[in-house]
């Protein structure tokens, strides 16, 4: 279970998060939606400890992330970065198998490569890309390599920052199914950021909408369409008219 209590973060005098309260139950898939620049990525990075919140607490399985032993703590996490963040100095398979080539999960290179190729297949990539470098791949392919890297060590908690952005509709469907499968079959806790309402419906158990530095609305995905929150309504209908300003 992941719990955020009153998490705030400012950059300079710009307050991005102003008291985010959010609970993600174990083994559930939470999807975070919200306008561009509202701090969704900052929220994920705060849970991972990559950004230190100014105030508030974040608990993972009841343990305060600030006090947790960072290595053991992070060994249960997988993260897909919005920009992919692939290591461009190594091949695709070495990226995917990064965790399996060093540290506590280290195994023989041959075996690590097998696992990497299997994960690549699951994100819809052929074995032949394994020996290419990230710079040689298209944006959508890089994204999927990032996804394969995030799930390679079968983490218990997985964060996906816009997993389907830049993918064609069919590939988006494949990735949505994969995320759903990881949650249902592996029992992982997932937190996904997306702007794609089809994805939201395909992968979410719960939905949270971030707006103006706070969680504007949260609830089960089934309640989303019936909710009468005007912000949420505007967001899911994609209307220019409503309480959310188009310029921000």
């Amino acid at each position: 279970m992941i719990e955020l209590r009153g998490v705030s973060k400012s950059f300079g005098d710009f307050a991005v998060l102003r008291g985010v309260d959010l609970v993600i139950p174990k083994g559930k898939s939470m999807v975070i939606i919200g306008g561009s620049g509202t701090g969704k990525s900052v929220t994920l990075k705060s849970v991972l400890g990559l950004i230190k919140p100014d105030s508030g607490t974040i608990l993972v399985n009841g343990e305060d992330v600030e006090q947790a032993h960072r290595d053991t703590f992070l060994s249960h996490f997988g993260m897909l970065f919005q920009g992919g963040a692939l290591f461009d100095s190594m091949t695709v398979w070495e990226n995917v198998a990064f965790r399996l080539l060093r540290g506590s999960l280290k195994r023989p290179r041959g075996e690590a490569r097998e696992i990497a190729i299997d994960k690549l297949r699951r994100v819809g990539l052929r074995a032949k890309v394994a020996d290419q470098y990230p710079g040689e791949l298209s944006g959508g392919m890089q994204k999927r390599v990032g996804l394969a890297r995030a799930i390679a060590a079968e983490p218990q908690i997985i964060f996906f920052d816009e997993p389907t952005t830049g993918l064609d509709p069919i590939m988006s469907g494949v990735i949505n199914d994969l995320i759903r499968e990881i949650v249902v079959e592996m029992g992982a806790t997932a937190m996904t950021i997306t702007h794609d309402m089809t994805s939201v419906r395909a992968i979410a158990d719960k939905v949270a909408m971030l707006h103006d530095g706070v969680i504007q609305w949260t609830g089960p995905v089934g309640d989303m369409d019936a909710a009468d929150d005007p912000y949420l309504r505007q967001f899911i209908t994609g209307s220019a008219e409503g309480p959310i300003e188009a310029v921000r």
Partner: protein
Amino acid sequence: MDVTAPVASIGRSTLRTIAALGRLSIFTGQTLRHILLPPYYPREFWHAVIAIGWLSLPVVGMTAVFTGAALALQIYAGSNRFGAESVVPQIVAIGMTRELGPVLGGLMVAARVASSIAAEIGTMKVTEQIDALVTLSTNPMKYLTAPRVLAATLTVPVLVGVGDVIGIMGGYLVGTSRLGFNEAAYLKNTFDFLQFWDVGSGLVKGAAFGFLIALMGCYFGMHSGRGAQGVGAAVKSAVVAASVLILASNYLLTEAFFGS
């Protein structure tokens, strides 16, 4: 206008400098700790040895041969004035091994290596690769900084040693072909004259310069600002800082070794 403004501005920049020095000291301490404590990343280390040491050989060699050659001409012209031309081999040897080998070699390596380390790590920083390393349970200081700093500290002295030999050879070529020195006598004079510490002190300087070069590259890379502009600024700062630190520490080391 507020009369305290100039004072405030001096105060601010002083505080900024002190804060930067503090950050740099912490960074240095962490680097040393990560070099000593496991886990180690031998692959990264060997990559760094190749990139920093092996691939710098041509640059250092070129620098040394031309420096040695020019030095021979200058010493000859200077000593000619009081009829002491015969000292050319000795002065070339001592000049190369004690000063010019380490300093010029160090500066060339700084230009080549501090810049490339800062650019590489800075780019990794702005494209979130450093964050990705952290989420993959890998400490960036241990994985990126420690191998590079260790490799530079160990390989730059070797480069300096090679540079000494090549530089003395440059002097020898000019001395024997242009200045009329006897070949065997030139070499004999050089090696009879050189003492262990002439060469040794240069190698120690090389190790110190190598450490500073990689440290500056890593420090400014890790603290790179955002975007291409941030990386550009980081590279520039790394090269400038490494060069100034080389010259300053060269003076201090020379004072420590040969002062008095």
